[in-house]
Structures are given as structure tokens and as C-alpha cells.
């Protein structure tokens, strides 16, 4: 295993220490428990937006903390959901009184931890709401699985929620908008190579010289299927078609309602993409794929969307939600309206996203 770390036990802490040193004006970092908050948190009168998830997906989520995006982020161990005590401490620190929105990627561990944290935060008197991100079309149904995974859509949801919170939306409004962005997002990813978790010290899965994995998540889990390697256009077409041809997707989402002080269940349906849709396109590196290769993907994606009369009105090309040093890419498309677009364009100042 070749990595720039000092030891398997200390590297997450050391990465956080490095971040703290690199962004003293932007971030404040707690190591015990681990969380990252805006240097100026809590921001008076503003809804706080908090997310979190396993480490190994950087810049997600810590790299998105700062004005215009997240107020706080909780990193877990590598590919392991963070724990409720982190979320509780982080949430309390960023809550200005206007409440906390928890953005949760749909993985059993994340969901269970955030659910517990929501209850704890509420118990401490913080208004709290939750929004679920479950955009990975590689997972086909929710009746016989844990539901779709949260992947690239999280980046878009965090940006829009952060923008709305900065603009003065109240907790219910930010939550409603964030959930709307989430159900209008669809993603799919693929791996050219495996990643290696520091603890395991060897690749999570073995891929032959000419094999690739389609429909992967972001934790080095095996994907939907393994196929012989093909070219960038074919891969882009494969992933884009899965996204664009994905039908209506209905699932039951639990979210915390601070007005009733309990969980409510809602059936939410993602409508398929249609000609005339306007979208934000994220072409994302899994970590080890350099940005130049992503442009070849973007080229084909733009061509397919044009042919289908889907207008890419904004794009983001780079490494935003990764699986350590894995090579591969994912595509996320989010259907937008003017309100969403306004908050996408709103200023943001974080380590990884800035405009």
C-alpha cells in the first residue's frame, strides 16, 4: 500500500490537523469528537446545514464547509458513518437557534446514526430537520434493498441548501428545497480500479487488467456488474443512458419534523428526465482519475444531452466525491428550476468549491 499517511491509526486526525492549518480563516476543527465547522459558526439567525459520512470521499463533506455551503461536517472512519455523538456536538456548535438541517446520504449506518443524532439534538432543544439523498440509479428498487445510495447528488444538495440558508430561508424552507433537489438528482458511477483502505492495506476488490466495474457506490463496494473495459464514449453513454432512462422512482422517506417532535414518513417520487429539462451536470472523478480524462466524459455527456433536448445549464467537472485513490468516474444530473439555479450560482467559499 502506497499512501501519504503516517499510520493507519492517526491519519484521519492528521488530515484534519492539516486542513485546520491550511484554512485557519475558514474552518474550525474539533478532533474529539471529530467535526469541522465554519470559523464563524454559529451564524446569527441562519439555519445551519450539517452533513457527514465516512472519510475517504474527500473533498466531501469537510471540503464543502464554509460560507454558502455547509456549516458543519462530521467525518467518520474510512467508509464508515460518523457517530451520533459527533453529530450532536457539531449540530449544537453550529445551531444559532434557527435550527439545523441534517443532510443524510442513504446508507444504513449513516441513516441510523443521523436518526439518533436528530433525536438527541431535538432533545437538547435544537430545531432539527433531515433530508435524505438517495440518487444512485445503479440500485434499482427500494422495496428489496436498503434503497438507493446517496452519491454525487449530495454535492448538489449541499450547495443549494447552503445557498438557501445563507439567503435567509427558514429551516422548513431549506429542508423542503434540499429534498426537492435530492429527488431531482440521479447519479451513476463506475470504477476502473479498486481503492485500498489504509486499514485493509490491499485493494478492496480485484479487477483484471481488462475488467471494470459498473454501478459502484463510493465505498469500494462491488458494483452492479463487471464488464470488459471499453472506451470513454461507450462508458459515458452507458452511465448517461441509465440516468436518463431511469423511470419514476418512488420510495418512503423518513424525516424528522420538529413541529411534531417525531419522525414522519412520506412517499416521494422522482420523475424521469424529460426533453426540455434543464440540469446541472456533475462529472466526478472517483479520486485517482485526473481531471483531463473527465473532459472526454463531459464531451460525450454534452452530446447525448443535446440530442435528447436536455439542457446542461451548469456543470462541475472534477473530484468532488471520491473513493480514496480509486480510478473511475460518476455522472450526476440534477433537474433544476430558477430557484435552485439561483442558489447554485450564489457565492460559495469553501476549500473545494468557491465562486
Amino acid at each position, binding site marked *: 500500500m502506497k499512501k501519504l499517511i503516517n499510520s493507519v491509526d492517526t491519519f484521519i486526525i492528521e488530515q484534519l490537523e492539516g486542513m485546520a492549518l491550511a484554512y485557519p480563516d475558514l474552518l474550525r476543527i474539533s478532533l474529539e469528537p471529530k467535526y469541522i465547522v465554519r470559523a464563524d459558526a454559529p451564524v446569527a439567525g441562519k439555519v445551519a446545514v450539517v452533513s457527514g459520512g465516512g472519510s475517504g470521499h474527500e473533498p466531501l463533506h469537510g471540503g464543502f464547509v464554509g460560507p454558502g455551503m455547509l456549516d458543519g461536517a462530521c467525518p467518520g472512519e474510512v*467508509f464508515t458513518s460518523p*457517530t451520533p455523538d459527533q453529530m450532536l456536538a457539531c449540530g449544537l456548535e453550529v445551531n444559532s437557534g434557527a435550527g439545523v438541517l441534517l443532510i443524510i446520504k442513504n446508507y444504513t449506518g449513516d441513516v441510523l446514526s443521523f436518526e439518533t443524532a436528530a433525536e438527541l439534538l431535538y432533545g437538547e432543544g435544537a430545531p432539527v430537520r433531515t433530508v435524505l439523498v438517495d440518487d444512485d440509479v445503479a440500485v*434499482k428498487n427500494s422495496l428489496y*434493498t*436498503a434503497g438507493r445510495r446517496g452519491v454525487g447528488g449530495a454535492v448538489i444538495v449541499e450547495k443549494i441548501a447552503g445557498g438557501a440558508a445563507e439567503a435567509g430561508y427558514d429551516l422548513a424552507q431549506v429542508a423542503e428545497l434540499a429534498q426537492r433537489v435530492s429527488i431531482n438528482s440521479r447519479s451513476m458511477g463506475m470504477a476502473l480500479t479498486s481503492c485500498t*483502505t489504509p486499514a*485493509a492495506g490491499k485493494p478492496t476488490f480485484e479487477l483484471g487488467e481488462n475488467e471494470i466495474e459498473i454501478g459502484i457506490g463510493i465505498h469500494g463496494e462491488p458494483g452492479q456488474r463487471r464488464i470488459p473495459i471499453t472506451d470513454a464514449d461507450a462508458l459515458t453513454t452507458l452511465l448517461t443512458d441509465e440516468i436518463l432512462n431511469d423511470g419514476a422512482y418512488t420510495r418512503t422517506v423518513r424525516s424528522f419534523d420538529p413541529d411534531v417532535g417525531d419522525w414522519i414518513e412520506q412517499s416521494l417520487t422522482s420523475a424521469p428526465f424529460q426533453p426540455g429539462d434543464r440540469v446541472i451536470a456533475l462529472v466526478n472523478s472517483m479520486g485517482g482519475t485526473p481531471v483531463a480524462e473527465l473532459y472526454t466524459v463531459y464531451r460525450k455527456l454534452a452530446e447525448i444531452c443535446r440530442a435528447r433536448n436536455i439542457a446542461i445549464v451548469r456543470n462541475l467537472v472534477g473530484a468532488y466525491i471520491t473513493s480514496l485513490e480509486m480510478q473511475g468516474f460518476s455522472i450526476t444530473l440534477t433537474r433544476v428550476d430558477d430557484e435552485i439555479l439561483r442558489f447554485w450560482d450564489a457565492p460559495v467559499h469553501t476549500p473545494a468549491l468557491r465562486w
Partner: protein
Amino acid sequence: MMITTATIETWLQRVAAVLDENKSYLTELDAAIGDADHGVNIARGFGAVVQKLAAQPGQPLGALFKSAGMTLMSTVGGASGMLYGNFFLKAATVAGDRTALDAADLLAVLEAGRDGVIQRGRAEVGDKTMVDVWTPALAALRAALEAGLPIAVALEKCASAAEEGMAATIPMLARKGRASYLGERSIGHQDPGATSSYLILRALADAVADEHKDV
């Protein structure tokens, strides 16, 4: 025979040791159908539990289980951390301020824990999760106790049923947790959480058997 605080502490120490020994094995199982972190995470978690307990020996069982549950929740991460954490928190509410458990108490404590797992995770038998161990194992324990067998023998039956439950996950298609994303590809692999659950119940049987021997 009563299960004392000391026996429970021994049990948890054995769990920590056996999970640490099986860390790579469990992580490999998780690599096949999950995200390759199960062994590392629960070994870390139970290690922390044992450290915490060592600092405060001889607590009433409710406090002991609560401490274990909170520690697991804040150190493991992932699905299993929350589920095992919940297991002990629920066990704690039944154990209360007892310092020893008779057979019926033990069964009630374990069943409360299992119900906590099911309540949080909403998995059913057949979903290829740790529930596939806990449900048949505690059914076997209940049956053995109801048949009047001594605790040590009943726990041995419980561990055997756990082992069968664990093996039974191999041909299953996962419906809950990370493995469910694999669909058909999850078939043929043993569930990592079921495996750690078996090791936990195996350690309980061994701890009590050892105690029994000494008596």
C-alpha cells in the same frame, strides 16, 4: 447458577479479543459484499468498551450495558455500530440495577437487545443480516431454558444455532444494509454482521462455561 457482573465483563473481554483476532476475516467478508470495514470497526468498538469497563469495574448491569452501548455508538460507526449500540442500550433498560442475572433474566436481556436491533434496522429473518443469527439463536436459548436445561448447556445450544444462522446467510440474497445493493451478487457470501454476532454469542457460551467449570 447466576450470571454475575464479573461473568458479563469476562464475556465482553472475550468478545473484544475474539473480534480482534477475527478482524481481517470479518473485514474480508465485508469486502466481498460490503465496504471492507466491519472487522476493523467492531474490533475498535469492543476494544473501547473493554477499556471503559476496566476503568469502572463492578457496575450494576444496567449501567454496564448502557456504557457499552454508548461506547459502541460513538466508536464503531456504520450500521453495525448503531445496531450493536442499540442492542446494549435496550439490554440495559431490562437489566436495570441488577448485579446478577438468572436464566430468565439473561433471556429477557438478550431478547430486549435483539428487539432493539430489529426496531432500529427493520430487518427480518432472511434478509441476510445479523438478525439471521439473533432470532434463531435466542429461539434456541428460550427453548432450551424452557426445557429446563442448565444455562451453560442452553447457551451452548444458543451458540450452535447462531452458527447455523450464520451459515444460513451464505445462500441468501441480501435485502438490508450495504449488501442489498449487490442483488444477486450477494448470494454465496456469508454476512459479516451475522458472523460477528455468532462470535459474540459463542463468546458468551464460552465465558459462562468457563465460569461453570470453576464452580
